[in-house]
C-alpha cells in the first residue's frame, strides 16, 4: 500500500478507513407497518394493501415482532437498547417509495454502541464498534429490464421490516470488513433475527470508504459504494475504490463525496448520482407514530431469550470438547450444525468422533442431497449409536460408513444393519483363518512370495482379506495371523 507521491517524491503510507452500513431484513411474517406478507416471489403488487401502497388516508401501525427482533439483534451486538426511540420521515421522491417518504429512525434510534469482534483474519482479533442500530421500512422494486418503454414498479417489498446496523469508521482492511460481515451475519442467523442472505437481498451492504495518510487524525472525504451482491463483491469493491481514491489523491486531485455503484462484471465503480437536484431529506418525527417506548422488563425478556452467541459457544466448545480451533470454527458456523453436533456428541459419548462424523460424512451427505441438516434421516440418536459401535471396535470405519449409507435409507438401528449385513468386526480366529486360506488359494503367487519372506506383501494380503470379509474382519487380528503364518 505504499506508493510514491508524484508531488513530493516521498512515499505515502495510505490508511484505508471503512465504515459499513448493513441493512438486514427482519424475519417477520408480515410487513413492518401493515399485515401484508413479506414472502418472496409473489406476482407483482399482490402483497400490498392501503398502507404499503401509500393510499390516501392509510396509516402505519408498528409490528410488535419486528420490535422484538430489532431488540434481540441489538442486544446480541452488545448495544444499549433505548427506552424511547422515535420514528421519523425521510422525505424523497422515487417511484418505488409509495408515500414519498420512508419511515425510519433518525436522531433517536432503537439502539446504540455495540461491538463486533473481528477474529478470523491473519491479524490479531479486534473489536469494531457498532455505532447504532435503527429500524426502518424497505422500499419497493423498480424493474428496468421488464419493458422497453417503461420502468415497472413492484411494491411487494415495500414495507418489509429492516434494521440498519452502522459501524464506526474504524475498519482498515478489506479482510477485516469481510470478517465483520461474516461475524455479523453469524450473529443475525444465531439470533434468528434474519435469514441474512445477500443473494436473496435479506442482507444488503453499503460501504463507506475514505483514505488518509497513516497517522493523520482527520478523515478523508468518503464515498459510499452500493449495489454489492455478495461478501466477495464487497471485498473487491473496497479494493477497487481504495485504488481509485489513491490514484486521485496521488495525482493531485480531490475525492468527491458521492454514491457509487459497484459493477461486478467490469470490477469497477461508477457514480450513481442523478444529475438533477441535491439531497435534503427533511427528516422530522413521524406524526402517525407516537414514540416507541420499551420497558426495562421487555428488554430483559429479550436478553433472556437470546441463544448462546457464537463467541461464547466457541469458548465453551474449547473447554467442553477439547476440539481443535479449525473444527470448532466449522462446527459453530451455524447454530443448527453446532446444536446437532452437541446432540451427537452427547449420544455417542465421543466428541472427537462426533465432530469428524458431522464435518465429514454427515455434511457431505446433506450437501449431496440438497436437503436440510435438521431433516437428515440419520438423527443424532442413531448416529450416536453408530459412533459407539465404531469407538468400541465393533465395526471398522469403512463398515461404519457403509452402515451410515444404509441408515439414510432405512430406519433400522446401526447394530441391526451391521449384524444383518455381516459388517461386525470378526476377530474369531477360525473365521479369519478361513478367509486367509481362501485368499491364499485364490492368489497362490502372492501367497508363495509372502511365505518366501517378501514381507511387504503382508499389506496387500490384509487388504484382500478385508475385501473378502466386506470390511468386517479385524485388520489387527489378520495382521497377527499372517505374521504368525510366515514365521
Amino acid at each position, binding site marked *: 500500500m505504499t506508493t510514491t507521491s508524484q508531488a513530493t517524491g516521498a512515499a505515502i503510507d495510505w490508511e484505508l478507513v471503512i465504515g459499513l452500513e448493513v441493512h438486514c431484513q427482519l424475519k417477520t*411474517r408480515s410487513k413492518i407497518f401493515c*399485515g401484508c406478507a413479506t414472502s418472496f416471489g409473489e406476482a407483482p*403488487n399482490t402483497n400490498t394493501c392501503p398502507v404499503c401502497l401509500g393510499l390516501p388516508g392509510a396509516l402505519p401501525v408498528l409490528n410488535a415482532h419486528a420490535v422484538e427482533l430489532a431488540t434481540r439483534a441489538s442486544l446480541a451486538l452488545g448495544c444499549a437498547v433505548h427506552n424511547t426511540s422515535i420514528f421519523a420521515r425521510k422525505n*424523497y421522491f422515487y417511484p418505488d417509495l409509495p408515500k414519498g417518504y420512508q419511515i425510519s429512525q433518525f436522531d433517536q434510534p432503537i439502539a446504540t454502541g455495540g461491538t463486533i469482534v473481528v477474529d478470523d483474519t491473519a491479524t490479531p482479533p479486534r473489536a469494531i464498534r457498532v455505532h447504532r442500530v435503527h429500524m426502518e421500512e424497505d422500499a419497493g*422494486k423498480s424493474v428496468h429490464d421488464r419493458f422497453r418503454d417503461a420502468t*415497472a414498479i*413492484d411494491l411487494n417489498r415495500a414495507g418489509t421490516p429492516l434494521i440498519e446496523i452502522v459501524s464506526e469508521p474504524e475498519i482498515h482492511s478489506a479482510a477485516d470488513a469481510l470478517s465483520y460481515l461474516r461475524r455479523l451475519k453469524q450473529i443475525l442467523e444465531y439470533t434468528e433475527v434474519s435469514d441474512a442472505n445477500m443473494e436473496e437481498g435479506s442482507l444488503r451492504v453499503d460501504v463507506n470508504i475514505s483514505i488518509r495518510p497513516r497517522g493523520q487524525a482527520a478523515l478523508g472525504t468518503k464515498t459510499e459504494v452500493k*449495489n454489492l451482491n455478495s461478501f466477495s463483491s464487497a471485498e473487491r469493491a473496497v479494493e477497487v475504490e481504495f485504488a481509485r481514491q489513491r490514484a486521485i489523491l496521488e495525482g493531485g486531485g480531490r475525492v468527491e463525496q458521492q454514491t457509487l455503484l459497484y459493477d461486478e462484471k467490469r470490477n469497477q465503480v461508477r457514480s450513481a448520482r*442523478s444529475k438533477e437536484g441535491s439531497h435534503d431529506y427533511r427528516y422530522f418525527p413521524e406524526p402517525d407514530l407516537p414514540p416507541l417506548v420499551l420497558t426495562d422488563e421487555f428488554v430483559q425478556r429479550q436478553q433472556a431469550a437470546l441463544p448462546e452467541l457464537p463467541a461464547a459457544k466457541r469458548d465453551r466448545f474449547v473447554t467442553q470438547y477439547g476440539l481443535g480451533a479449525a473444527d470448532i470454527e466449522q462446527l459453530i458456523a451455524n447454530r443448527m450444525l453446532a446444536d446437532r453436533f452437541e446432540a451427537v456428541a452427547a449420544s455417542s459419548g465421543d466428541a472427537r468422533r462426533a465432530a469428524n462424523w458431522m464435518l465429514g460424512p454427515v455434511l457431505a451427505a446433506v450437501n449431496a442431497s440438497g436437503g436440510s441438516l435438521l431433516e437428515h434421516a440419520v438423527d443424532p440418536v442413531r448416529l450416536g449409536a453408530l459412533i459407539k459401535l465404531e469407538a468400541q471396535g465393533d465395526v471398522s470405519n469403512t463398515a461404519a460408513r457403509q452402515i451410515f449409507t444404509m441408515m439414510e435409507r432405512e430406519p433400522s438401528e446401526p447394530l441391526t444393519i451391521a449384524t444383518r449385513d455381516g459388517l461386525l468386526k470378526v476377530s474369531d480366529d477360525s473365521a479369519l483363518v478361513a478367509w486367509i486360506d481362501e485368499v491364499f488359494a485364490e492368489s497362490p503367487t502372492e501367497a508363495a512370495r509372502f511365505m518366501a519372506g517378501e514381507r511387504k506383501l503382508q499389506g496387500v494380503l490384509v487388504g484382500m482379506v478385508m475385501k473378502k470379509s466386506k470390511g468386517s474382519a479385524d485388520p489387527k487380528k489378520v495382521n497377527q495371523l499372517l505374521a504368525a503364518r510366515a514365521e
Partner: protein
Amino acid sequence: MSVTNADVLHVAQLARLAIDDTRLPGLVAELNGILQHIDALQQAVIPADLAARAVAGMPLRNDDTPSVPLQRAREAFAPATRDGFFLVPRLATHGDAGASASSSDAEGDA
C-alpha cells in the same frame, strides 16, 4: 427571515412543483408575508426548565394481524399498469443499469 426567488425555486424543486416565472414573484411575496408573521415564534420566551412530555408509547400490532383488504383491483385506480406492475416513464439514469434497483439500492431520489 425571508425567502428569495432562488429559495422558492429550490424548495419547489424538492417538492416536485414547477413554478413558472409569472407566478414566482407573487409566491415569494406571499411566503414572505406569512414568514413575517411566523417570526413571532422567535420572540417566544422558552422556559429553561421546560420538561419533555412523558410519553405513553405507541400501541403495537401483532405480526399476524391481517391487512385491510383492497375492495377494488389496483388496475381500477392506477393510472398505468401492465402485467400487475405500476408503470412509470423509463428512468433515464438507469439506461444501462441492472435488472432491478430501488431507491434503497441506488441514489434514492428521482
